[in-house]
C-alpha cells in the first residue's frame, strides 16, 4: 500500500516540474520506488518456478559440476581430457551439400494468412536461421521479429508430436479409418452438419481443396476465424466501393501520411516493406522528407517515429476521421472533432497541399466507418492509383470473420453441427466471449483438430493431429500484393506432423497424398504443362512465382456511402482498447521463449501483458505500476496488472491479447492474463463502458528499462528539418568531445580492414527484429521472467527507449544499443586474463573460453552492453534445441561474459572466402544479423578503411555522432542523429 502513494507523489512532482520547466524538459522514472519494492520481492523468493535455479535443480549434472570444480581446485583442470568424440559420416552423401558450408532455401512464412518471403540458412540439413528474401515484395531482404523467432517454434520441444484420440495416443492409420466412416455418413446427407474452420486462407491450393470439398458436400460450410483478422478492412471496402478489394499503400510516393490508429510500420501485411519505403523517405532529410501524422490510443512503433502524434481514444478516431473528411470536402456530416482546436484544420490543409502525394491509412482495429472514410478521403485527394492502389482481394474468401465465427457458434449451440474440422487456429482460447464457443463445441459430435500444439482447442477435440511447421511441410501462400510463394520444407517433419493440405486431401477421400504432390499438381494445372518443371524450379529458387501479384482494379467510392455509415456512437466512461500483442501476436507465439522475453517496443516489459493506462488516468484511479486491476465490461471481468504508459490516451485502457494461455506448452502456460473474455463479436477491438476497479493485489512485472528519461544527457540527438538546414552538424556540436588524439599514447593503426557500424536513429522504429535476429544468430539463451526482473536479460542488443517532453504526450526515441567496439575500450584494460581485447581489425573480441567471470569489464563498460551468464542459461539438456544452434558460434556456459561480436563468425567466413580468392572483402559482403533483418535498413556495417563503403560514407555524414565520446572511448558504433519534420502550423503548446 506504499506504492500508490509513492507513485502519486512522484507523478504530481513530475507535473510540478514540467509546469515550470521551459522548453524541452526531460522527466524522471515513474516507478523507481515501486521498482525497488518489486525487485526486493523478486530476490526474496528466488526459487519460484521459471528462475534458472529451478531450470537446473541440484541434480546429477550439478553434482558432476561440483566434482569437476573440486578437481579443479585440486589444480588438475589442465589435465582433464576431453571425452572421446565420434565422427558419423553419411552412408550416401546428398547432392551438392558441403559439410561446414550453409545452404539457403527460399520459402515463406505466413502471419494472418499473408506471406512474407524468407531465405532459410541450413547447416547439414538443419535450418538454423531465417533471413529475408530480397526478391520478395513483402520482404525486400528484411523480416519482422516473428519470422526470426519462428525457427525456435520449429524446434520447440512442446510442439505436439503425436496423433491424439480423446486425449490418448493414437496413430494416423486409425484417423484414416475414422475418416473413411465419416465420409460415408457425410456423402449420404451431402455433408450436412459438416463444418470446416480455418484461419485466413490465401493459399490458392488450400482454397481449391476447400472448394472441391464443398462441391462434394454441398451442405457443408467453411468458416474462417482468427482474432487479428482484417474484418473492418473488408467491411470498409464493401461500404466504400460495394465490393471487397485489397488495399496496397505506396508509402514511398507519399509526402504526407495520416495514420488513423494504423500501426502500418510494425504490424499487418506488407508492414516490413512499408517500413522500408517510409524510412527511405525519412533518410533523405531535406525537402523530400515525408511527414507522418498519427492519431492513436496507445503509443505504437509507428507512433514513436511520427512527426505529430495525437493521443486519442480509439473510439474518438472515428469522429476525428469524420472531421478531416468533412474538412477535405467529402460529403459527410462533420460532428465535433475530439482533437485540440487547429489540429484537424492543419492536418487537412497539409493533406490538401499534397493532394495526390498524400495518404490516409486506417488501422485494422478501427471500425468499418473509418476505413470507408479513409477510402473516401484518399479518393477526394486524388491519391487513388498514386499513393494507394486497389486490387482484387488477396484472401481466397474475404469474409468478415467475426460474423463467420458468430454463425458457426450459433449453429453449434443449436446442435446443427455434427462434424467440425478445425484447421489451425485456437478458437476455444480466442473466439469472442459472446460466441460461447466452448459450450457450442461440446455439442458437436465429432471434433477434429489439426494444430501445432496440443492446446486449449485440442483439449476439447476428439481427434488432435500434429501439424507441420511451415519449415517442415509443402504449401503456398500469397503476399500482401498477391504474389505467390511456394513454401518448401527445410527438414522432414520433426514430430511426424501433417500439413493442412494433406489433411484436406484425406477428408476429400483422396487418401494419403504427399504435400509436395498436392501443391505441385495444383500448380501444374494452374500454370500448364508447358515448361512447368522449369517454372517450378525457378519458383522454388526465387521464392516466388513471377507475375502472380493480383491485378490492380479501378474502383470508385459510392456516392451514397456516407448514408450507409453507422453513426459514430460516443463513448461514455472509460474505454477498453484491445490490440494484438507486439511480441506474441494473438497468442500463437505464446510458447516461443524468444518472443516472450522480447521487451515490448514501448513498455520494455517482458513475459506479460498489462493494462496500459495514461499517467493522468492512473493518477485519477490512484494506481501504480504492477497493481492488479479488475476490468469489467459487458458483464465479463478479467484481472490484470496496471502499467502507466506516458502518451496513452486519457480514459482508455489498452490490453494486449495473446496471454493467459491455459494449455499449449510449458512457456505459454502462465504469464499474463487473457483479455479474450472481454472480446465480443460486436466490439472485437473493445469499446466503451469499461469499469476499472482496484483489487489491492500487486503483480510482479519484469521490465528491462527502469528509467525512462535521458537525465539531460545527449544520448539521442535530434533536430527538426529546419534546424538541420541551419546547422547540419548540430549533432556534433552538442557535446565538446575530446580534442582529436587526446592521448598520451601513440594510436594503434588499423591497416587492412577496420570494422565499424552506423545506426540511423532516423529510421529505427524499435520493431525488435534485430534483437531476435541477433538472438537466433548468436545462440543467445532465454533466462526467464525472474532473471529478467533481476536485470539479467541476455539479448546482446538492447533497444533503449526514452521519453521526452510532456508526460501526457511525450516524444519517444528508440536507440539500439550494442557493443560499441571502442578503440579505447574500458572493458579491455581491466580484464585480468586478457579474455577481451582488440583485434587487428578493430574488433573488441570476447574470448569466452578465456573468461573467468570477474564481471569487471561489464562494470567498466559505460554503455553496459555486456551480458553475463550468472547461471547455466544455455539449455544443454533439451536435445531438440541442439540442431537449432548456429554451429559457427560457441554455446556459452556458466560464469562467462558475452556481448555483441559484430557477428565475427560472418566476418571470418567472408575473410576466408576473400583470401582464398586473393582479394579484399567487398563492401556488403559481411552483413551482421541485425543489419540483414532491419526492415528500415537503420543499421549499416562495414569496413571504415574502404572509402567507398556505405559505412565509411555515413561516418562522414554531418548527422553522425558517437555517444559518450567525451569519455574518449572512440566507439566504432556511431549514430546518425534523428530528424523530425513537424508541421509549422502545429507548434506544440
Amino acid at each position, binding site marked *: 500500500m506504499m506504492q500508490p502513494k509513492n507513485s502519486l507523489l512522484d507523478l504530481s512532482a513530475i507535473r510540478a516540474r514540467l509546469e515550470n520547466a521551459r522548453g524541452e524538459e526531460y522527466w524522471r522514472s515513474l516507478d523507481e520506488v515501486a521498482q*525497488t519494492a518489486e525487485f526486493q520481492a523478486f*530476490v526474496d523468493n*528466488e526459487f519460484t518456478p521459471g528462475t*534458472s*535455479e529451478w531450470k*537446473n535443480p*541440484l541434480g546429477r549434472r550439478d*553434482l558432476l*559440476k561440483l566434482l*569437476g*570444480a573440486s578437481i*579443479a*581446485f585440486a*589444480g588438475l583442470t*589442465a589435465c582433464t581430457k576431453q571425452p572421446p568424440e565420434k565422427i558419423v559420416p553419411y552412408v550416401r552423401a546428398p547432392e551438392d551439400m558441403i559439410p561446414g558450408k550453409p545452404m539457403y532455401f527460399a520459402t515463406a512464412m505466413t502471419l494472418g494468412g499473408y506471406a512474407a518471403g524468407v531465405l532459410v540458412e541450413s547447416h547439414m540439413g538443419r535450418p538454423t536461421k531465417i533471413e529475408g528474401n530480397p526478391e520478395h515484395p513483402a520482404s525486400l531482404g528484411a523480416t519482422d521479429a516473428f519470422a526470426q523467432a519462428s525457427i525456435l517454434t520449429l524446434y520447440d520441444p512442446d510442439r505436439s508430436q503425436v496423433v491424439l484420440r480423446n486425449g490418448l495416443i493414437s496413430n494416423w492409420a486409425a484417423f484414416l479409418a475414422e475418416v473413411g466412416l465419416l465420409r460415408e455418413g457425410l456423402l449420404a446427407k451431402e455433408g450436412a452438419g459438416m463444418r470446416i474452420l480455418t484461419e485466413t486462407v490465401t493459399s490458392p491450393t488450400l482454397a481449391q481443396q476447400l472448394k472441391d470439398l464443398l462441391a462434394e458436400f454441398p451442405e457443408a460450410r467453411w468458416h474462417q476465424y482468427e482474432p487479428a483478422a482484417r474484418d473492418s478492412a473488408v467491411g470498409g471496402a464493401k461500404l466504400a466501393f460495394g465490393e471487397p478489394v485489397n488495399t496496397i499503400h505506396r508509402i514511398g510516393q507519399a509526402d504526407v501520411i495520416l495514420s488513423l490508429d494504423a500501426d502500418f510500420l510494425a504490424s499487418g501485411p506488407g508492414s516490413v516493406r512499408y517500413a522500408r519505403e517510409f524510412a527511405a523517405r525519412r533518410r533523405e532529410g531535406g525537402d523530400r522528407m515525408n511527414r507522418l501524422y498519427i492519431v492513436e490510443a496507445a503509443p505504437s512503433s509507428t507512433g514513436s517515429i511520427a512527426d505529430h502524434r495525437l493521443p486519442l481514444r480509439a473510439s474518438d478516431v472515428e469522429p476525428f476521421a469524420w472531421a478531416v473528411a468533412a474538412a477535405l470536402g467529402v460529403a459527410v456530416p462533420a460532428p465535433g472533432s475530439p482533437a485540440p482546436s487547429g489540429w484537424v484544420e492543419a492536418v487537412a490543409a497539409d493533406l490538401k497541399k499534397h493532394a495526390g502525394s498524400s495518404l490516409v491509412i486506417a488501422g485494422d482495429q478501427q471500425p468499418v466507418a473509418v476505413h470507408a472514410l479513409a477510402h473516401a478521403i484518399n479518393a477526394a485527394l486524388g491519391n487513388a492509383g498514386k499513393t494507394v492502389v486497389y486490387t482484387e482481394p488477396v484472401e481466397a474468401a474475404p469474409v468478415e470473420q467475426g460474423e463467420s465465427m458468430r454463425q458457426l457458434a450459433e449453429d453449434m449451440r443449436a446442435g446443427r453441427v455434427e462434424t467440425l474440422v478445425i484447421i489451425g487456429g485456437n478458437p476455444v482460447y480466442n473466439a469472442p466471449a459472446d460466441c460461447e464457443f466452448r459450450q457450442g463445441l461440446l455439442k458437436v459430435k465429432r471434433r477434429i483438430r489439426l494444430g501445432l500444439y496440443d492446446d486449449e482447442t485440442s483439449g476439447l477435440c476428439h481427434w488432435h493431429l500434429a501439424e507441420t511447421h511451415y519449415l517442415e511441410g509443402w504449401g503456398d501462400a500469397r503476399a500482401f500484393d498477391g504474389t505467390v510463394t511456394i513454401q518448401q520444407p527445410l527438414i522432414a517433419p520433426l514430430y511426424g506432423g501433417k500439413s493442412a493440405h494433406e489433411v484436406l486431401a484425406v477428408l476429400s477421400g483422396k487418401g494419403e497424398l504427399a504435400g509436395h504432390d498436392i501443391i505441385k499438381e495444383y500448380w501444374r494445372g494452374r500454370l500448364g504443362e508447358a515448361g512447368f518443371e522449369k517454372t517450378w524450379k525457378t519458383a522454388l529458387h526465387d521464392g516466388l512465382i513471377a507475375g502472380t501479384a493480383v491485378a490492380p482494379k479501378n474502383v470508385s467510392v459510392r456516392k451514397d456511402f456516407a448514408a450507409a455509415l453507422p453513426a459514430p456512437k460516443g463513448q461514455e466512461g472509460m474505454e477498453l482498447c484491445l490490440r494484438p500483442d507486439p511480441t506474441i501476436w494473438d497468442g500463437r507465439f505464446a510458447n516461443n521463449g524468444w518472443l516472450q522475453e522480447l521487451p515490448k517496443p514501448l513498455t520494455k516489459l517482458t513475459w506479460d501483458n498489462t493494462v496500459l493506462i495514461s499517467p493522468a488516468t492512473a493518477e485519477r484511479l490512484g494506481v501504480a505500476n504492477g497493481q492488479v486491476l479488475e476490468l469489467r465490461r459487458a458483464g465479463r471481468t478479467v484481472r490484470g496488472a496496471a502499467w502507466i504508459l506516458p502518451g496513452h490516451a486519457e480514459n482508455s485502457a489498452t490490453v494486449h491479447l495473446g496471454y493467459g494461455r491455459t494449455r499449449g506448452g510449458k512457456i505459454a502456460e502462465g504469464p499474463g492474463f487473457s483479455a479474450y473474455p472481454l472480446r465480443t463479436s460486436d466490439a472485437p477491438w473493445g469499446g466503451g463502458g469499461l469499469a476499472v476497479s482496484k483489487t489491492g493485489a500487486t503483480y510482479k512485472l519484469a521490465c528491462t*528499462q527502469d*528509467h525512462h*528519461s*535521458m*537525465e*539531460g*544527457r545527449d*544520448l539521442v540527438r535530434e533536430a527538426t528539418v529546419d534546424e538541420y538546414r541551419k546547422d547540419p552538424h548540430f549533432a556534433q556540436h552538442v557535446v565538446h568531445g575530446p580534442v582529436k588524439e587526446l592521448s598520451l599514447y601513440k594510436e594503434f593503426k588499423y591497416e587492412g580492414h577496420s570494422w565499424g557500424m552506423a545506426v540511423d536513429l532516423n529510421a529505427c522504429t524499435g520493431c525488435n527484429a534485430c534483437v531476435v535476429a541477433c538472438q537466433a544468430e548468436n545462440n543467445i539463451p532465454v533466462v526467464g521472467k525472474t532473471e529478467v526482473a*533481476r*536485470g*539479467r536479460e541476455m539479448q546482446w542488443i*538492447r533497444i*533503449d527507449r*526514452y521519453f521526452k517532453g510532456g508526460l501526457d504526450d511525450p516524444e519517444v526515441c528508440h536507440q539500439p*544499443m550494442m557493443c560499441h567496439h571502442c578503440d579505447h575500450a*574500458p572493458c579491455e*584494460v*581491466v*580484464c*585480468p*586474463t*586478457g579474455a577481451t*581485447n582488440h583485434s587487428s581489425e578493430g574488433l573488441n573480441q570476447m574470448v569466452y573460453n578465456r*573468461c*573467468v*567471470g*570477474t*564481471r*569487471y569489464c*561489464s*562494470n*567498466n563498460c*559505460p554503455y*553496459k552492453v*555486456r*551480458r*553475463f*551468464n*550468472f*547461471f*547455466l542459461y544455455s539449455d544443454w539438456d533439451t536435445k531438440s534445441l541442439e540442431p537449432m544452434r548456429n554451429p559457427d558460434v560457441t554455446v556459452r556456459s*556458466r*560464469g*562467462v561474459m558475452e556481448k555483441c561480436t559484430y557477428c565475427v563468425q560472418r566476418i571470418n567466413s567472408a575473410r576466408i572466402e576473400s583470401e582464398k580468392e586473393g582479394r579484399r572483402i567487398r563492401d556488403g559482403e559481411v552483413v551482421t544479423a541485425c543489419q540483414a533483418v532491419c526492415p528500415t535498413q537503420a543499421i549499416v556495417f562495414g569496413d571504415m578503411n574502404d572509402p567507398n563503403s556505405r559505412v565509411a560514407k555515413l561516418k562522414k555524414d554531418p548527422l553522425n555522432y558517437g555517444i559518450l565520446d567525451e*569519455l574518449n572511448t572512440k566507439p566504432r558504433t556511431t549514430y546518425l542523429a534523428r530528424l523530425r519534420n513537424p508541421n509549422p502550423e502545429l507548434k506544440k503548446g
Partner: protein
Amino acid sequence: MEAEQRQDPGAAAVAATRAGEVPVIGPGHTYASVTGKISEIVLTTKTPRGWIIGFAISFLLTMMLLFTIASLLVKGVGLWGINIPVGWGFDIINFVWWIGIGHAGTLISAILLLLRQEWRTSINRFAEAMTLFAVACAGLYPLMHMGRPWLGYWLLPYPNTMGTWPQPRSPLVWDVFAVSTYATVSLLFWFVGLIPDLATLRDRTKSRPLRVVYGMLSMGWRGSAIHWQRYETAYLLLAGLATPLVVSVHTVVSFDFAIGIIPGWHTTVFPPYFVAGAIFAGFAMVLTLAIPLRKFYRLEDFITMRHIDNMGKILLATGLIVGYGYLMETFMAWYSGSQYEQYMISNRMNGPYQGYYWALIFCNILTPQLLWFSRFRRNLLALWLISLVVGVGMWLERFVIIVVSLHRDFLPSSWGMYHGTKYDWSMYIGTIGFFLALMFLFIRVLPMISIFEMRTLVPEPDGKAKH
C-alpha cells in the same frame, strides 16, 4: 637484598615516569611474572567456558560459510543479488572491508615499531594475528566472486599449454600480487615475532607432545646474543618493508575502482583515503577485540588505559582523514563540472540508496567526533560501541562506493537496483564466523602478547630501565 629491589614498586614507578606519563605495563612486574602470566593463558589455564561457547558458535558459522561456497560452486554466482549494471556487490564490498581491517596489524607492528611507539608491544601480536585471519577472509571473496572460480589460477603468471598470460594492466592482477605478498609478509612477520615466545612455551610446558610441537615451531631457538642481533635486524627490516607494503596494498585495492571510468570510482583521492579508511577500520576492529580480551583474561596490566587512549586518538585522526575524503569527493564532483559526476553525488544523497549514504556519514564522521573527549576515550564500553559503529560504517562506505556508483552510471536505460540475497548474507556472516573461529584458536594455543618484547619493558632488577 636484590630480591627486595626486584619487588620495589618505586623502581616500576621510575620506569613508568621514564616510559611516559601513563605506564605501558602495570607496576610490580618482573621477567618471570610477565613470562608466567602470558604463557599460562596458553599452557596451564583450563579452557574457560566462555571460550568453548564462543568457539562453538563461530565454528557453526564457518560451516554455514562452507555450505554457501558449495552452493556457489554448484549453481553459480547468480545466487547473489548481482546483475547488470551492478556486477559487484557484497563480494567485493566484503573483500575491501576485510582487507581494510587486515591493515591495522601490520601497521601497529611495523609503523609503530619504526616510530618506537613501545606501547604497541602489548597489542601487536594479536593485531598481527587479526591481520592474517582478516586477509584470509578477504582472499576468499575475489576467488569466489568469479564466474568460474576453478580457473582462478589463470590470474597467476605461469607457463601453460595455451601460451597465454595474465593481463597485467588489470588492477585485479595487481590485487593478486598485492594481497598474496601482503599475506606472505604478514605471516612471516608474525611468525618471526613468535619464535622466541615459542621457545619459552617449549621450555615451560609440562606435556611432552606439546614440547615437541613448540620445539619444532621454535626451530631450536636458544636466545644466542648473535642470533638476537640478526633477529632484530631482520625484524626491523621486515618492518621497514611492511610499511610501504601496507600502504601499497590498499592503494592497489583502491585502484580497482580508481582505474575504472565509472562516476564515483574514477577519483584520484581514492588511494590515500582508502588507506586511511583501512587504518580506521583496522583500529576499530583491534579495539573491538582488545577490550573484551583485556577484560576476560585480566590483561589490564599489559593493555593499560594508555593503550586504549592512544588507539582512540588514532581512530579519531584517521576518521577525520576519511571525512576529508568524503568532502573532497563531493567538492570534486561539483568542481569537475561533469554532469555525470554531479549526478553521482546527488544520487548518493537523494537517490534510492540515500539511507545508506547518510548512515555512513553518521557512523564514520559524526560518531568518532565523540573521541575528542577523553571521557569517551577512557570509557571502555563507549569506546567499544564506537569501534563497532565504525566497523559498520566502513562496510557502508564500500557499499556506497561500489553499489551506488554502479547502479546508475552513464546511460539511464541501463540503470538498475541491487539487493543482497540470503547467499550474500550467509557468505558475509560466514566469513565473520570463520575469522572469529581462527581468533579463538589463536588465543588458545599461542601467546596473544609478545612475551620477549614485554620483558624489554620490565624495569631491570637493579633499577635501570632497559632499552
